[in-house]
């Protein structure tokens, strides 16, 4: 018998706590596979956020830190500066990175910190039960925007990748989605490049991953994938915003 597919060694055997249809599982898999394929799992140190992926330290099969809400880039900076030979990454949601941790996210890029950030944008606060995020779309309902988000009250949704791409220290910035197999393959490629960016010492690398939250969006997993494609991608265009290879 030949093994043609198996769970990545970059993941532990723990069962995840994610809701059915949540795309965190897919992104975890892509990160884990990238670490294994690049041969850096045994020198990787990850930083988990506060939010749905707060327990990511139970799932990635490498050394992990749990950080305070929004502070993962600062924690990762501390680790990388004292252990530059290790590979350091953060895994953060939109409440963590685009709201409470904007200062840390901007300045980790500003310093060109040689770490890799995986940024999950699902346009909502998942763990706390569906509150509005800075990335919640106009008209999208949330438990703290019960009639739907309006521009007058909360402004326009924040496009973090575009913003971070204006910073010279950000060597690799790409937005991907995990709503279908083709996009998942592109996401994997981007995540791997973001780690290679760190391996080559080019600077800060971030991959924004458009993800679904069927539970708090009030949709079935399949409908959530469709909603992502029809609503999120038009506002958050996929593509590369900054690539260290082009800067050569």
């Amino acid at each position, binding site marked *: 018998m030949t093994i043609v597919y198996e769970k990545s060694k970059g993941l*532990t055997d723990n069962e995840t706590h994610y809701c059915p249809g949540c795309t965190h599982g897919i992104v975890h898999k892509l990160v884990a596979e990238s670490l294994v394929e690049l041969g850096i*799992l*045994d*020198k*990787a*140190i990850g*930083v988990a956020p506060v939010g749905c992926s*707060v*327990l990511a*330290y*139970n799932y*990635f*099969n*490498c*050394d*992990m*830190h*749990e*950080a*305070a809400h929004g*502070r993962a880039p*600062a*924690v*990762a*900076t*501390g*680790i*990388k*500066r*004292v*252990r530059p030979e*290790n*590979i350091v990454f953060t895994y953060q949601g939109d409440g963590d990175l685009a709201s409470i941790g904007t*200062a*840390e996210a*901007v*300045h980790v890029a*500003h*310093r060109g910190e040689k770490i890799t950030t995986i940024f999950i944008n699902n346009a909502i606060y998942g763990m706390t039960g569906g509150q509005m995020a800075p990335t919640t779309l106009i008209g999208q309902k949330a438990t703290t925007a019960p009639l739907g988000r309006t521009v007058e009250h909360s402004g326009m949704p924040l496009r973090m990748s575009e913003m971070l791409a204006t910073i010279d220290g950000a060597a690799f910035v790409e937005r991907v989605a995990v709503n279908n197999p083709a996009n998942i393959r592109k996401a994997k490629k981007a995540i791997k490049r973001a780690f290679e960016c760190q391996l080559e010492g080019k600077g800060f690398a971030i991959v924004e991953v458009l993800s679904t939250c069927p539970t708090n969006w009030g949709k079935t997993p399949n409908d959530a994938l469709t909603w992502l494609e029809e609503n999120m991608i038009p506002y958050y265009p996929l593509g590369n915003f900054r690539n260290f290879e082009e800067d050569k």
Partner: protein
Amino acid sequence: MAKILMKGNEVIGAAAIEAGCKYFFGYPITPQSELPEYMSRELPKVGGCFLQAESEVSAINMVYGAAGAGKRVMTSTSSPGMALKQEGITYLAGAELPCVICNVMRGGPGLGGIQPSQSDYFQATRGGGNGDYRHIVFAPATIQELADYVMLSFVKADQYRMPVIVLADGMIGQMMEAVEFKTLEELAPGVNLEEKTWATDGTKGNRKPNIINSLFLDPQELEDHNWKLDRRYKVIEDKEVLCETVEVEDADVVVCAYGTTSRVVKNAISEAKSKGLKVGLIRPITLWPFPYDEFKKIGENCKGILVVEMSTGQMIDDVKIANEGRFPIHFNGRVGGMIPTPAAVLEDIEKIAGGRK
């Protein structure tokens, strides 16, 4: 090592490097900015790293990362910045990470002022962030003590796996005195520190992942964790109290003060003695653990305890706990950067000695 003349803030940096600390994450704030400036100059020379963070919040979280990765690390700030650092400090306490944090106190509340103060006592001694935790607090009164206790802080932080606070004030930070740097062995003889096998440095494929964490979703696990920390705190309360206690057994008046204020008090006491009064001193060197038992040494003839602080009265609460209602307690406090004068303290001592309340 010969004695040299140095400024307090720079002594903190030199002592840290002497203790093997190679990493400093900080943010400028008066009156401690000479310390990050010193570290930015000196740490690269020893192969270390100084980084100016975007805020005190980030600086303490960088410390959390570096400490979790197993390195000796420190940060420093002054009062408004210390308030910001409390988030990171409670995570450090919860995740059992060693580090050293210096607070060169200035007046508050709010932006307050930039002159010396002792108004962060409650925050320092009660666990200033959320949750049940404590950390050792050293309160040096001289530049020599500043050097000694900064160095000792790194040993105690590693020994007990906790953040240790050095609580100075603007006076200690800004003044110059002669100082001699001792060795760690002289300061903490016989302390054997365990290897940091819990640190994150990559599994290297030969061990299970190490996880630095303060989250326990299961209530029973969190309770167990809290009691585990508490047992450690009890050991520290038992073993790590430091205090200078002078002639309290047959004193008419006992004065209690720490840090800069204790120097003013010593002047007043020596004047009072020259006038024939019997005055004792209790000078806590560790504010947590507080030297409660020292107050039991006060003789029955004491007419009162005078607490002198650069605050509206914070340490006085611990003195009341220690006193157990035995003697009247009096207070002399100056705030906002104003410093108690020996003359005012002497006047209070004379009043208490005269039996007037």
